[in-house]
């Protein structure tokens, strides 16, 4: 027990490194085996993320804000099944009401309301009406429109014309799919009718700040809201197929969302295998090349050795970052090509170190002895020199991983990464181009960079402690 404690104390770094690497491997396995490939391809597809809120903070910050009695609006999606439905049959038309009740208890306005719908249309286009009943019993009609008046010309025999407007899509001959945005001009105009109810000017406010506002001052009004989506149909063929009410929150998910409504946590997850793959592949290849090149350069004498040393020297003197930028700028953004470039610039340093060791070991007596006994060069290198260098090579491998990961993220940040494989560096590039720093979207910046740092530190810790073992070995 006494020895164990001492061991732990001396290798704190290594133990932390092992814990961290297990964590990273866990994330990799999760991302590779539990997220379907199909889902991973959606990262660059903005449509896939359209039901998420934009620039939302992580949802756990509400737990901290609770201490200050402050709550940010959560993201809320209502589905068709959540609605309270009733039908009113008049002689001339049928009215179908879908009422959703929404408990709003937050200290800030939501960011927007989106209402996607799909309706099967009969012969006569229906009229859509949206009401919001507020806790103070005021009722706003925020939208009222006939599907027909929005340039959807219904054609009886199913020939589509090119009348797709921005908000409406004719899916098949009689299915209309659309999305009503609270930021649209129709909603703004509709709300202008209620300007006399408010004791302040609502002219320049966005709709969600009017709908959820107190009448005395522009502060959020908490309580129960009832949102009613009504369809007035004039024939029996009109059927509401799908309806969502999305109240865009300001907090979402484990790590929030970005400008394109993508889940940051999802991005972090699918970035893990890519970043680890880059780091490990580059490190593995360059330590391997470096080891054998260095060994041969040290073992061979005179001309070949000197020539090999000069090549190492040339590679070490090349301004690698600048060349990396220029080359990848010209040859395009391919992950494997990038990895190749990193290997090309990564091996020479290791080769130089290994050469020095190989010269030392070469002159040991037992190596000289086996040489005299007529063993072949290859056998001597593989049997006597390589095993001596293994722990040291392991340390080099671990220390080469962060270099590759940091290099890749820097290139990605410059916009030179492979877009079909999202990495943490690319997420940071997106954040920077949307000026997330100055807008204060910290969750979008902190998480990817934190992952880069954690991964690098993990391998640095592992490398340092295996170096320590190497030194201890030597002392013995």
């Amino acid at each position, binding site marked *: 027990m006494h020895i164990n404690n001492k061991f732990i104390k001396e290798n704190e770094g290594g133990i932390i490194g092992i814990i961290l690497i297990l964590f990273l491997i866990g994330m990799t396995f999760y991302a590779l085996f539990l997220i379907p490939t199909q889902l991973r391809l959606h990262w660059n597809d903005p449509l896939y993320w359209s039901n998420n809120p934009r620039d939302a903070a992580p949802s756990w910050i509400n737990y901290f804000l609770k201490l200050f009695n402050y709550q940010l609006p959560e993201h809320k999606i209502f589905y068709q099944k959540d609605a309270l439905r009733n039908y009113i049959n008049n002689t001339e038309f049928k009215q179908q009401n879908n009422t959703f009740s929404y408990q709003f208890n937050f200290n800030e306005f939501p960011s927007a309301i989106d209402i996607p719908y799909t309706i099967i249309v009969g012969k006569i286009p229906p009229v859509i009406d949206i009401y919001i009943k507020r806790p103070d019993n005021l009722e706003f009609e925020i939208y009222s429109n006939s599907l027909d008046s929005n340039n959807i010309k219904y054609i009886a025999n199913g020939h589509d014309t090119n009348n797709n407007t921005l908000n409406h899509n004719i899916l098949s001959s009689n299915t209309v799919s659309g999305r009503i945005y609270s930021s649209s001009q129709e909603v703004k105009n509709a709300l202008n009718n209620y300007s006399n109810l408010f004791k302040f000017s609502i002219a320049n406010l966005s709709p969600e700040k009017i709908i959820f506002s107190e009448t005395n001052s522009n502060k959020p009004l908490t309580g129960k809201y009832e949102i009613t989506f009504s369809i007035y149909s004039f024939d029996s063929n009109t059927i509401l197929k799908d309806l969502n009410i999305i109240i865009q929150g300001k907090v979402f998910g484990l790590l929030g969302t970005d400008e394109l409504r993508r889940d940051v946590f999802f991005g972090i997850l699918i970035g893990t295998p890519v970043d680890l793959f880059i780091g490990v592949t580059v490190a593995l290849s360059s330590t391997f090349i470096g080891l054998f090149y260095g060994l041969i350069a040290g073992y061979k004498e005179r001309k070949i050795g000197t020539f090999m040393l000069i090549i190492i*020297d040339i590679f070490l003197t*090349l301004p690698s970052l*600048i060349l990396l930028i220029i080359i990848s700028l010209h040859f395009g953004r391919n992950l494997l090509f990038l990895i190749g470039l990193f290997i090309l610039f990564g091996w020479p340093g290791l080769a130089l170190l290994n050469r020095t060791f190989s010269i030392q070991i070469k002159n040991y007596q037992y190596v000289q002895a086996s040489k005299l006994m007529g063993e072949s060069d290859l056998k001597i290198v593989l049997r006597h020199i390589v095993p001596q260098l293994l722990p040291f090579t392991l340390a080099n491998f671990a220390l080469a991983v962060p270099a590759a990961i*940091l290099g890749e993220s820097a290139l990605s940040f410059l916009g030179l990464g492979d877009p079909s494989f999202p990495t943490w560096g690319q997420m940071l590039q997106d954040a*920077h181009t949307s000026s997330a720093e*100055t807008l204060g979207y*910290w969750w979008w910046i902190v998480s*990817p*960079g934190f992952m880069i740092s*954690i991964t690098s530190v993990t391998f640095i810790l592992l490398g340092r402690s295996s170096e320590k073992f190497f030194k201890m070995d030597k002392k013995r």
Partner: protein
Amino acid sequence: MKVFFFFLLKKIIILFIVLLITLFITIFLLSSTFDQIMKDSIRTQVIESISSAISKNSNIHQFKNSDERQKFIDQQIKLQSQSLGLDEPWYSPKKLFNNVLKIITLDLGKSRFATTFNGSSSVNDLILEKMPYTILLFTSSSITIIIISLFFGAYLASKEGKIMDKFISGLASISQGVPTWWFSMIMIVFFSFYLRVLPSGSTPLIPPNGSGYTADLLYHMTLPFITLVIIGFAPSVYYVKYIISRILHEDFIKTLKIMGIPQKSILYKHALKNAGPQLTTMFGLGLAGTLGGSVLVEQIFDWPGMGNLFYNAIFQSDSPLIIGLVYFFALIYLLTRLILDVCFTYFDPRIRSEES
């Protein structure tokens, strides 16, 4: 001395080869645009020379009509292009020689988009204008880091194994793993967005010749400066401590202790002095690295230095500027390496004997 001379010669040859390789790669990658630049400059030269010849002596170069004039111009351009080898592929020796000669003699041409504050678009002027900013920020923060690490590192070397020592070595591991440019983003979020004490963009709002420019520049420099020092000092302190603590274990230090020389004097006078060569190399390389500035850090802070210039040149594919900057960065990098190699060999004779 002879060995030293040969060593120096070898180094210079290698560095020259590397410079040529870098230039060849750059020219190869940007050759098509480079040709266009050359052709454009020939065209303007030809037209200028004709019009000046006409104005000087109206009898000689009179053309009957514009077609004839155009024909003459085209012919002249073709002649000159051929003499420069522009109609040949990039690897033809004549053309390569011409291109490389042009770059080496600092004939870097004009940038397509960027201009200096005075409106000049010459690549040389641009580099000369931006370089002082980079030196101001990066070199000053490096020097600050060097001063901190010399004193703090030497102090820590005498306290090996204490909590402070462990803390710094942990911090060094972390700072090496954390990308500086990401840390810069975090600093902006914290200081500019939440605390609102320092500006996020670093380009001063007052024009360079306005009054109060220096104060404004220094105010805008504060955040990047602090960021660079915080992220950079721990590895540097750790390294200085490592070198000095190794020297402290040597026999001559023990002798000094026995002689009764005070601890402080041993540490700051004898140990530091003996660590001189290694520290010079390390800090020299670090300082050289700062001259190019960090492309990413300058871009994030919007600091008007050479890194930012390079970033913009890349994204506007401003080839003359890219070629000029690459040459310039490579030149600085290689020259410092040469100077350091020379210094290092001079200080440490063991290297010479090993090499020979």
